[in-house]
């Protein structure tokens, strides 16, 4: 029986079902409701954990790192400036190969200051060595949060569960929460083989000279690539337990004969699904890239079979370069027979609504040459006159 839950509340409940022993967080919009809900679960005695209300995101990440190394399951959540403030620790956590789960309530990065949704924050730390899973809806956020703990602990890698801020975190909708038994059957108790223990002392985080450094980095890289198997396995096992279909790496929705594809990460997916119904004459395959790290090259190639045009929607910018996701997609598809042409647009930056009407514009855009990526939902009225006149902005 689905319950009416706000996304943040559901994520908090999913975290509680995984029974972390330590939760540390610093409040930041739009992550706050998640941590507030966890705090109330702790206050009501429904979650037995040490909730550390730290003085910064830098410390939030550091506290969960210390907790995980001392042998406890740990969780944190943040967004935007918080991600950037903890970025030094994020690299450290993954480099130490410490299993942790963090929710990123995706939000734009300042300046200009914006508390609203895009994905610039998690994209800014794409090379931090974390697994990054993007959620298309709140049910996926619940299911992914639970899977994330198992993936993290089996791979000894941290997992970032990326959830569009406000668009998902602040949306109330019917959601299925699993039972404690279901989660317990899926997620074994936390065990970290390198946990710090006075009876078996080890040194973690040592200085590593040039003679070993490359090998350590290569092992980290390979661990992320190998994590693909665990992501697939976790989705399959959780799907068997909860009865919901889950696409672990790339979700493809649309007919095999479709020649046009649209790829996105996160909650825009559902809006595009609805919009497509109004244009039933044009078969379009919608792709949701759930796993951005590791980047699932083979699964992406399979999902793009038969496509001649692929529109990649970015929720972030790489100023002065082409799109972040688009460039990686292009690179993954390069060299395969009949690879689609890749069109690349940013959309919905800083909380700009992505309306149903974006869909026909995307379909029209594939007929026009776009040498460089641009924002498709730009409003020329708000550009300075000179930029307006050049007409460089895509339709």
């Amino acid at each position, binding site marked *: 029986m*689905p*319950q*009416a839950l*706000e996304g943040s509340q559901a994520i908090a409940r999913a975290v509680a079902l995984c029974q972390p022993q330590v939760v540390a967080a610093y409040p930041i*919009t*739009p992550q706050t409701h998640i941590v507030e809900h966890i705090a109330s679960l702790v206050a009501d005695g429904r979650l037995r954990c040490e909730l550390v209300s730290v003085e910064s995101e830098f410390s939030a990440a550091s506290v969960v790192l210390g907790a995980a190394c001392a042998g406890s399951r740990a969780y944190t959540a943040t967004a935007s400036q918080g991600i950037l403030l903890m970025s030094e620790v994020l690299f450290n956590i993954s480099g130490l190969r410490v299993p942790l789960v963090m929710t990123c309530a995706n939000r734009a990065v300042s300046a200009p200051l914006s*508390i*609203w*949704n895009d994905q610039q924050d998690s994209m800014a730390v794409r090379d931090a060595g974390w697994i990054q899973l993007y959620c298309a*809806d709140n049910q996926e956020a619940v299911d992914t949060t639970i899977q994330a703990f198992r993936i993290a602990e089996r791979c000894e890698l941290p997992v970032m569960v990326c959830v569009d801020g*406000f*668009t*998902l975190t*602040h*949306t*109330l*909708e*019917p959601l299925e929460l699993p039972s404690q038994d279901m989660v317990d059957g899926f997620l074994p108790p936390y065990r970290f083989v390198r946990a710090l223990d006075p009876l078996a002392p080890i040194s973690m985080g040592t200085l590593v000279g040039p003679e070993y450094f490359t090998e350590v980095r290569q092992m980290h890289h390979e661990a992320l690539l190998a994590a693909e198997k665990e992501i697939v396995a976790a989705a399959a096992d959780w799907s068997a337990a909860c009865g919901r279909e889950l696409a672990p790496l790339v979700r493809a929705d649309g007919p095999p004969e479709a020649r046009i594809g649209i790829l996105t990460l996160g*909650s*825009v997916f*559902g*809006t595009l*699904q*609805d*919009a497509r119904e109004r244009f039933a004459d044009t078969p379009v395959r919608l792709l949701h890239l759930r796993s951005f790290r590791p980047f699932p090259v083979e699964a992406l190639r399979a999902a793009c079979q038969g496509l001649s045009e692929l529109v990649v929607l970015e929720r972030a910018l790489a100023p002065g370069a082409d799109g972040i996701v688009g460039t990686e997609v292009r690179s993954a598809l390069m060299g395969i027979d009949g690879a689609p042409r890749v069109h690349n647009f940013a959309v919905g930056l800083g*909380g700009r*609504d*992505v*309306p*149903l009407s974006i869909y026909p514009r995307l379909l029209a855009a594939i007929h026009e040459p776009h040498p460089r990526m641009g924002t498709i939902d730009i409003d020329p009225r708000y550009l300075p006159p000179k930029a307006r006149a050049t007409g460089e902005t895509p339709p």
Partner: protein
Amino acid sequence: MIEVRIHGRGGQGNVVAAYVLATAAIDQGHFAQAFPAFGAERRGAPVAAFVRLANAPIRRRCQVVNPAFVIVQDETLTASPDTLEGLRPEGAVIMNSERDGQGLSAAFACTVYAIPATRLSLEALGRPMPNMALLAAFLALTGLLPITGLKDALGLRFGGDVLARNLTLIDQVVAATPAGLWKERADAAGA
């Protein structure tokens, strides 16, 4: 799918109203979605919240631009054209106002049902919190959900005296509202 937009000012319980309405629908076995027009608003600033009600899973997450119904918690917000913008032709507006509905309908060139929700809430709750009176009127007019559903959803969020007073207020509003007056509008919007 029926799309509803709620306009109010920060502190008037706009998001709560949206959440309660969607919760009532979900608990009655429907599909629903509610979300605020995400802002950094402080008390008094204009805010909006959105509700979608449907009989199938709701996938879109864009803002509501063509609402079937608009609930206006603060009449002064109609000074902005955004408030009634995009209202569907068969749609209608519930407005918190001491004025007459017919006069408002003429003034705004659309169907407006007026209810003095601030005064009613002051009398019933002792504070100006018009949201539940407006929701009760909305459900009574459209018949979209049973009033018990609204009461149950409210009971999930509030308790004690606050709940009791709100339940009394809801009964009072429902008794004074022509039941099912907008049923055809709702059917047309949901079709």
